[in-house]
């Protein structure tokens, strides 16, 4: 009886966005009288971080500090339309819509600044700290707080912008099925190192090496969060989670957290994660979506590692001790020693 080590890998290519009906999302942006740019969205942040990404895209495009951006996702009844947060589309669709809206707002901001400073808008630049200044004459400048006030009370202008991202709709060619289903694809590979106890059938994931090509990681810490949180979920699906352990009989199915097993903080593999950046030409600042794909590659990687460790080829999840032991038994009957 022994603990057997194995290593396996799996790769995934994952589409960003879908393309039925063009999969659009909108963004609106306007400056308050004190120079806060409110980005209105109907996109929902459920922890994946779209509000942060939208704020980063708006700040970068406006040329203003991120503190000047407020993202409002409060109400899908009154907000500009979003198809939803699915298909790993949020960063790509919403990011692009926000950039378009912020670019229009920036244009107005520079026009109003040109009036205020009595110069040509083309001669103005933002410095990222809140000032709009004349290129080459940095002391001729106006702060966004003063400018937004002046726009409202003096110039009668709204500093605002509209944005939408719509991919050209594509339907399948009936003869071939050919279509253009997504906007870009992110790629990933996971290597799993496992230990299989051939007496108990317990599989332990010791290490995961995650490599993700994500276009551009707009926020590398959050991208890593997605990768490693997703990998945890992958491990959980691979080894623990099922609502129907004896499908189609539902008799022993878990009903609650007490019976629905997931790995806890003491069962974690060591994770090593690497982000590769090859900007996508249609992505916001080159970004692709990586939300959903992160739970995928660990599962087949673990299955392959189990095979490498003990020769058992499992095709049904989760890879429970029972399944491992049945697999080991089958191997022993095949080749009696």
């Amino acid at each position, binding site marked *: 009886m022994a603990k057997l080590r194995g290593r396996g890998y799996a790769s995934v290519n994952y589409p960003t966005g879908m393309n039925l009906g063009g999969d659009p999302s909108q963004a609106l942006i306007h400056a308050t009288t004190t120079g806060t740019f409110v980005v209105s969205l109907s996109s929902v942040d*459920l*922890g*994946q*971080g779209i509000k942060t990404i939208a704020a980063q895209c708006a700040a970068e495009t406006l040329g203003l500090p991120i503190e000047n951006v407020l993202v409002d996702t409060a109400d899908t009844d009154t907000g500009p339309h979003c198809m939803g947060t699915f298909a790993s589309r949020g960063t790509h669709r919403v990011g692009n819509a926000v950039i378009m809206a912020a670019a229009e707002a920036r244009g107005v901001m520079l026009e109003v600044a040109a009036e205020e400073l009595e110069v040509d808008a083309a001669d103005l630049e933002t410095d990222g700290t809140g000032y709009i200044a004349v290129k080459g004459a940095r002391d001729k400048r106006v702060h966004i707080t003063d400018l937004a006030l002046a726009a409202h009370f003096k110039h009668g202008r709204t500093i605002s912008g509209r944005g939408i991202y719509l991919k050209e709709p594509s339907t399948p060619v009936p003869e071939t099925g050919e279509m253009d289903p997504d906007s870009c694809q992110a790629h990933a590979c996971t290597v799993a190192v496992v230990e299989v106890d051939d007496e108990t059938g317990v599989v332990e994931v010791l290490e995961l090496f995650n490599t993700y090509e994500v276009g551009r990681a707009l926020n590398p*810490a*959050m991208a*890593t*969060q997605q990768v*490693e*949180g997703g*990998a*945890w*979920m992958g491990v959980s699906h691979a080894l623990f989670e099922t609502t129907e352990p004896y499908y189609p009989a539902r008799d022993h199915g878990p009903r*609650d*957290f*007490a019976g629905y097993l*997931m790995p*806890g*903080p*003491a069962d*974690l593999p060591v*994770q090593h994660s690497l982000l590769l950046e090859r900007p996508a030409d249609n992505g916001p600042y080159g970004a692709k979506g990586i939300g959903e794909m992160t739970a995928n590659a660990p599962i087949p990687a673990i299955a392959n590692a189990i095979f490498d460790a003990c020769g058992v080829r499992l095709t049904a999840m989760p890879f429970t001790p029972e399944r491992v032991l049945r697999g080991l038994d089958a191997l022993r009957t095949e080749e009696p020693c």
Partner: protein
Amino acid sequence: MPSQIVSLDVNGERREFIAAPGATLLACLRESLGLTAAKRGCAQGACGTCTVLVDGRPEAACLVAVETVAGSAIRTLEGVATGGDLDEVQSAFIDCFATQCGFCTPGMIMVAEALLDRDPDPSEADVIEAISGNVCRCTGYRPIVIAILEAARRRRERAVTR
């Protein structure tokens, strides 16, 4: 059994309210006192997101009948920050990216507060043990463990410089 008036010391303030018999501490905090940081995840003691401190001990507020803790000192996440200043655990959670959807965060932070109150220098194993009754679906736990260790370090550092 009739409803009764229950008095608690909540985050340093004496609060009185009427509780139906068997009402849970969680329901009273959320519905009678409007303190909604503690969440109702499972209502059966298995997820930990309802954790509050009862006389310094972390408890699953969904399992506590409020009349059994009448007169106790209750600490909830609302009582952790001082004015607008986050404490070390809260700020370490932000800095270490230890939260995604945030549903587990109130319970995780309260468990961490209780741990650091009794042990300012916990080992990684102590932290894991402390949060082992709290479910997180998003982070994979690792960033939470790191954040709590970081909070402990910051709190020790502050204790030295004070």
